């Protein structure tokens, strides 16, 4: 192929590659220019929130902000004014309708003056439901809506469970392992609610409304347990995150293991986030102690969608549809105060960081505006998140591809315009018979001269062979010139079939490569 054509062929191949890659990027939607931002609507000092929720608690058709830490339960209205401020010793809280008014109440499990007690805060009014309870230091509390009726289940720091009726009467007791209860959640079995409980020493138990174990399992020490019906089949999946990085997904029906993966670091948080906007299946996001973030989809078994990272321990994960596309983004906070938004494709966008570690994140309508509430070690901020994107940006890879292709074409054209470097081994040869004969004599004299030098020991080894090879080559060229000009010539050279070097006719072995010659 001509050297004028080859650069264009190479350029064409490169252009095809570049445009193919550009098209893949453009039409896969992988390239976007999106910006997430937030502005603080109001902020209140509140240290190290343990539990937080935007919810209507005062019966006024407006959502309030409920927040609880290790010594206090507070309700802020939509503008940040405290509607309730109640101190407790070691409180643990949950939300549920206890008084039957179809509005959520706050259930507080705490250490009271007369031992362990449970308070209910309904419409801002505090009433004691039970006290002097036979249970240990508060660890978790949950209101479970069993098919037979709601129950309040208390969990303590040594694995003890105590179920109370909505009137405060003890119903049953159970012990899960011997360490702190680390998770209590509703677990559906055949569409009916059961209770999933896990303790720090690795016990996972599903209990029915009578406090009877449906099944129990033991695994490595665990930090987190959540139960969700991920694939909407009426049976929950129980997700546990281990102290040593094991992530398990169990079937709530029988405790069979549906998925497991080692995350390489302790699992510090697990939450469901509707990342793909397809509501028949839920995705879940896992956060690690060293800042790792992983998103999984679930359809009978879990499949990792993407992974990312933050700079410190992931302390909270919350799913919020910021850009209004029907899919939630994962808003994730870490122990260093960083807050980042991870989109459905896993791209990370940082929000303003906080001066202390993030403890809780929640979303809801406050004062009629959709807000994100972020609590850190010292305060709680109510932010208004915003989203902007550059329309049509996803097609920019095609523009970049066209520019690169144009440059490749220009380079090919320029390289083609440069003439080939002239051959630096040239021969100026007169084609007359006399001249060719004289040249032949000269070459033979030179060969004889080299032989003489070798015998005299002046030239040895490779230098002798190299010089001889060149002179024999000249002799072969001379023979060719004779033949081309049509003059008779007695051929005296042959070519080695192995190395191509020119040899004298009659030689049995190639002097250059050692090939045996049979001619």
């Amino acid at each position, binding site marked *: 192929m001509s050297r004028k054509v080859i650069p264009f062929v190479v350029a064409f191949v490169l252009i095809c590659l*570049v445009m193919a890659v550009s098209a893949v*990027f453009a039409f896969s939607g992988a*390239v976007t*220019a*999106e*910006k997430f*931002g937030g502005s603080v609507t109001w902020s209140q000092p509140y240290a190290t929130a343990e539990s937080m929720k935007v919810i209507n608690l005062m019966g006024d058709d407006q959502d309030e902000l409920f927040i609880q830490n290790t010594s206090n339960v507070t309700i802020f209205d939509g503008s940040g004014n405290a509607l309730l401020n109640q101190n407790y010793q070691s409180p643990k809280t949950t939300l549920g309708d206890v008084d039957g008014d179809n509005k959520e109440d706050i259930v507080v499990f705490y250490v009271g003056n007369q031992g362990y007690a449970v308070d209910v805060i309904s419409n801002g009014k505090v009433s004691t439901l039970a006290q002097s309870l036979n249970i240990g230091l508060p660890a978790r509390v949950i209101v479970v809506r069993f098919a037979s009726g709601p129950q309040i289940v208390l969990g303590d720091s040594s694995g003890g469970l105590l179920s109370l009726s909505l009137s405060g009467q003890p119903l049953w007791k159970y012990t899960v392992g011997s360490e702190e209860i680390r998770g209590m959640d509703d677990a559906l079995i055949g569409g009916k609610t059961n209770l999933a409980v896990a303790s720090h020493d690795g016990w996972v138990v599903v209990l029915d409304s009578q406090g009877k174990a449906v099944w129990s399992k033991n695994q490595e020490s665990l930090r987190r347990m959540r139960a969700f019906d991920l694939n909407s089949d009426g049976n929950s999946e129980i997700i546990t995150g281990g102290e040593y990085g094991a992530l398990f997904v169990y079937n709530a029906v029988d405790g069979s293991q549906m998925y497991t993966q080692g995350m390489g670091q302790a699992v510090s948080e697990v939450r469901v986030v509707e990342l793909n906007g397809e509501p028949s299946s839920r995705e879940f996001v896992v956060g690690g102690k060293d800042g790792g973030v992983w998103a999984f989809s679930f359809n009978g078994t879990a499949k990792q969608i993407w992974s990312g990272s933050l700079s410190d321990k992931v302390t909270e994960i919350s799913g919020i549809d910021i850009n209004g596309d029907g899919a939630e983004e994962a808003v994730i906070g870490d122990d260093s105060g960083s807050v980042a938004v991870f989109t459905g494709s896993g*791209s*990370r*966008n940082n929000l303003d960081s906080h001066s202390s570690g993030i403890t809780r994140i929640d979303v809801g309508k406050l004062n009629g505006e959709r807000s994100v509430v972020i609590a850190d070690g010292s305060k709680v901020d109510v932010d208004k998140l915003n989203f902007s994107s*550059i329309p049509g*940006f996803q097609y*920019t*890879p095609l523009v*970049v*591809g066209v*520019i*690169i292709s144009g*440059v*490749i074409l*220009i*380079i090919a054209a*320029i*390289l083609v*315009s*440069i*003439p*080939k*470097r*002239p051959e*630096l*081994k*040239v*021969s*100026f*040869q*007169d084609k*007359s018979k*006399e*001249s*060719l004969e*004289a*040249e032949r004599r*000269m070459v033979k*004299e*030179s060969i004889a001269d080299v032989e003489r030098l070798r015998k005299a*020991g*002046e*030239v*040895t*080894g*490779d*230098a002798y062979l*190299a*010089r001889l090879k060149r002179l024999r080559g*000249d002799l072969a*060229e001379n023979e060719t010139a004779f033949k081309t000009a049509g003059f008779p010539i007695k051929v005296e050279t042959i070519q080695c079939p192995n190395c191509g070097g020119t040899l004298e006719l009659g030689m049995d072995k190639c002097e250059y490569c050692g090939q045996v010659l049979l001619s």
Partner: protein
Amino acid sequence: MENFICVGGILLVFVLIIFFYLLNTARKRNAPTTNKIGKKDYLPVYISLADKPQSIMQGMDRLRIEVQRTEKAGDKWRWVPLIIFFVGVGLMSIDLLLILLGYMSFIFIAGGVALWIAAIVMARGLRKSDSQDFAPRYNGTKTILHTLRDDLRPSTTFLGHLDLTGALLPTKVARTSKDSQDRTTEYFRDEWLALKAKLYDGNILRVSAIQKSKKRKSYTKRSRISGKYKTKPEKFKGTEHDLKIRIVANPEVYTVAHTSPTFKHGLNIGKFTISQLDTEGGIISFVANSPFEEVEHENILQVIQSAYSLLQRKAA
């Protein structure tokens, strides 16, 4: 932050290297190539001579013009890689602007990097069209041929070769020797000019210019004090020139004198000293030796001219 500074610093160094490479391509400031002994490298030309003087000289001029044409064709586009580099910078700055505005985008940076790669490829291509200079021996040989052109017998040709591919090639190692410390010394023999001509007066002239060089190869030795192994680089030990000339005198025209005041053993002629001289059998055969690394064409012609003083024209 330290990681950012470290990675940023490394990237900056890479960008600067690319920039100066392209800038030097544009300004044609390539580092001159040198051979193993630090001497300037010349264009490695090998010419077989078997033609009339005029054809050879025209061919040599044509070769020079072709080399220069290739080089000039490349020179026209030398600024293009640098322009492509700046187009890449422009593309990347779009992404930097977007990042400053809070959007995360790397597509233009990727495009810019691709353009930089294209610019480097093009610069390499353009640098390949660069040529080294022709060796002074190229012009010198042409002058020798020009000087002898009228002395050549009509309808005959010059025969031989001009080999300017280099004096220290592995294929030109004539022999090697080892000293008491097991160090290898290579002896090079570069017959860069071989010329045979039938002259107008019936004589046959053979000229052979040989550069003999000596080089000690690199070796590793152990220090007696510290016990560490040290590698010593190769060392160029010197070079000299031999000019071997043989004139077969036409016995019908000349008688050969044994000696002459202007040409005898041990005589200095220009850069050469006559080291061997033999005039037996009507053939003048001698070797002139020069300790200089480079000998000019004037010296070679001067020696040939002096050798002719041994020829005495017979009476008609």
